[in-house]
């Protein structure tokens, strides 16, 4: 089952194209995104948002962009990324609770826990493709869910892991108050986000990144060219899991809480829809999707109890009418 032959998405644009027009456009997009992100605390209250919502957007955006390394740039469909997100959250929470009140250490542990779990699991499944890959990944995520859910003494079980709080950042010259100041914490999340996203951009621009796109475009041809497909997919999966776990660790810091719902397959679905909604072939697409999804869900669920129907309708509408996502549509229009 190779999915590439049945793909309807347009040829890659944005950061992966070499054409001059495309690269100017992508630089402009990047500049706009950066300016907007840096000034969030100034303009978010004006449109009725709040800073914690913006932090959430960044975190979910990072998760969706990390996931998209796999879906958008390698062409492999995981439906269980909640597992690595949630493990990242638990790793961070457990560190703060039992090891040391250090935010950097918490993040590191979260990233390692989620990333290594993903890397090991990836070994088992690299030969699967398409819906079968999706199915085993979602099942693995549920395994992680039930472990967190059942191991009450360590994880707090159904109630979630509580009794920890993010610690202030101690630099050699000063202490940054991220524990109690929401705005400072937002900038901390933004810094981590930009670092991670910068690394992802580097990776995609490298020969490794180009090989992944080659696999996505035509796996059979890539195989004939002597590219070790399985190893590349495995590496891509692993990298994607490490970054997703980073997002999860930040999520635990945002809430000062980690709970099994962060591992549940509904979150996996949410991550996928964010990537697709924003445009899975555009570098910034998943971030746009995350912003759209988080904000829509936040406002709709305040207005009606039946928000689930609206979320469902978003899923259906995106699939049937905007399969290329928002940035996909805009890029195509911009390209003409």
């Amino acid at each position, binding site marked *: 089952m190779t999915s590439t032959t049945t793909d309807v998405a347009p040829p890659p644009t944005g950061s992966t194209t070499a054409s001059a027009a495309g690269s100017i456009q992508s630089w402009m997009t990047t500049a706009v995104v950066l300016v*907007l992100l840096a000034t969030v605390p100034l303009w978010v209250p004006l449109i009725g948002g709040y800073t914690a919502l913006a932090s959430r957007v960044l975190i979910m955006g990072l998760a969706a962009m990390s996931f998209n390394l796999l879906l958008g740039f390698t062409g492999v469909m995981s439906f269980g990324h909640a597992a690595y997100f949630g493990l990242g959250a638990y790793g961070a929470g457990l560190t703060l609770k039992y090891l040391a009140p250090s935010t950097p250490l918490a993040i590191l542990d979260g990233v390692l826990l989620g990333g290594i779990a993903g890397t090991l699991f990836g070994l088992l499944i690299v030969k699967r493709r398409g819906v079968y890959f999706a199915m085993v990944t979602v099942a693995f995520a549920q395994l992680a869910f039930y472990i967190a859910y059942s191991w009450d003494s360590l994880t707090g079980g159904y109630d979630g892991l509580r009794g920890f709080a993010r610690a202030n950042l101690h630099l050699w010259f000063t202490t940054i108050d991220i524990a109690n100041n929401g705005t400072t914490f937002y900038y901390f999340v933004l810094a981590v986000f930009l670092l991670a996203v910068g690394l992802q951009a580097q990776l995609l621009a490298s020969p490794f990144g180009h090989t992944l796109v080659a696999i996505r475009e035509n796996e059979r041809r890539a195989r004939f060219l002597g590219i070790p497909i399985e190893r590349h997919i495995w590496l891509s999966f692993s990298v994607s899991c490490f970054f997703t776990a980073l997002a999860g660790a930040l999520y635990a810091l945002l809430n000062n809480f980690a709970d099994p719902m962060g591992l549940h397959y509904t979150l996996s679905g949410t991550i996928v829809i964010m990537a697709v909604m924003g445009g899975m072939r555009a570098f910034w697409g998943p971030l746009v999707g995350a912003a759209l999804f988080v904000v829509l869900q*936040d406002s709709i669920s305040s207005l009606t109890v039946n928000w689930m129907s609206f979320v469902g309708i978003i899923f259906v509408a995106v699939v049937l009418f905007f399969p290329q996502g928002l940035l996909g549509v805009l890029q195509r229009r911009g390209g003409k």
Partner: protein
Amino acid sequence: MSRNHSYKWGRRELLKSGVALAAIGMPSIISARAETPVRIGMVDPLTGILSALAASEVEGAKYAVARVNKKGGILGRPVELLVEDSANDVGTGVQKTRKLIQRDKVDVILGDVNSGIAYAMMGVTNELKVFHIVPGGHTDPITGTDCKWNVFRICNTTAMDASAVTGELVKRFGKKFFFITPDYAYGHTLQANFIKKLKSLGGEYQAEMLPINTSDFSASLIKAKAYKPNVLLNNMGGLAQINCMKQFTQFGMQKQMGLGGALFELESVRAVPAEAQTGTWAMEWWWDQPKVPAVGAFVADFKKATGKTPTARHWFGLVAIETVRLAAERAKSLAGPKMSMAMEGLELPPEISLSPNKAFYRAGDHELMADIFVGDVHPPKRSPDDVFTVTSVVTGEKAAGPVSETGCKMVHPA
């Protein structure tokens, strides 16, 4: 909860970056009004497995808001209730709490039915010094080891419920218990409290911990039958509790042992077939109290307003709103620290407590000391909701024991 929306579309470049789309569906800043209302934010799991209980709490709170507004509001200002769905998810619950406090500028936070979420919300409200009432999340640490100066609770602790019902079960059936308990914090503390009380009465027991959403209990019921207890304690919640009851009766076990437990809420009793409406339980409030005059009038008025018989959850919502009013009027302020001081020891007037003995917020742990109604669940008698007969009323203070046993050390801000 309807608000005006302004749809702001940025220029195309902005749109391209997509972040500007955040503006869709976001309410614009609410324009200042002549008379600023008192805003109360309520976070409850309106969707998910606890939604039936949450719906009742919200309904009770809405009823109370209408009632309070009719009588002139709080501090002469109208009351506005903003309800947010936590979707039974901690992250969402925390986010909605921040939204209510930071964007909507609510003065008070109520919620959540899920004690895990309530607990996480406490972190936010305590950080932002906002007055917080937990109407219906039962886990003990909320007013125990992790109690906070700004948090008060209306429903009982598991220790109170267990303590109230154990004596009645021992008296009625005997001292040999078999527990079927959900494997999470609520279940653990509840069972531990039952065991503590049972041991003090010289009893013995066997226990089975099951996943919270178990739907098939035959394996555990087989074990229970082999143990031959005097009474089986069904500590499960929601649908799991209902299925456990149904299978218990289907297996014909009611002929061999008694059945009971801490809570079998009216919402749940209504959802089981008549043969499973049985057992000895505690209700945290009950609508049929012929000896308390205020209750009859309230039930009639509530039925007129909503078409429903009020449940304990409705009462939690009502008490939460009325408590805010009482505390604000006593403190003459809506500031968290002042309201908190005003509420300590606050006694509810009879038209709010709606129970035979006095109900008050204990200063030492901020737990409402209210009556616990122990009795028997049975199929409907005179009316469809006449499914419970009270046999004894245990005062909250007696069931709770001294503050020192809760582990709460209340620290007020300087």
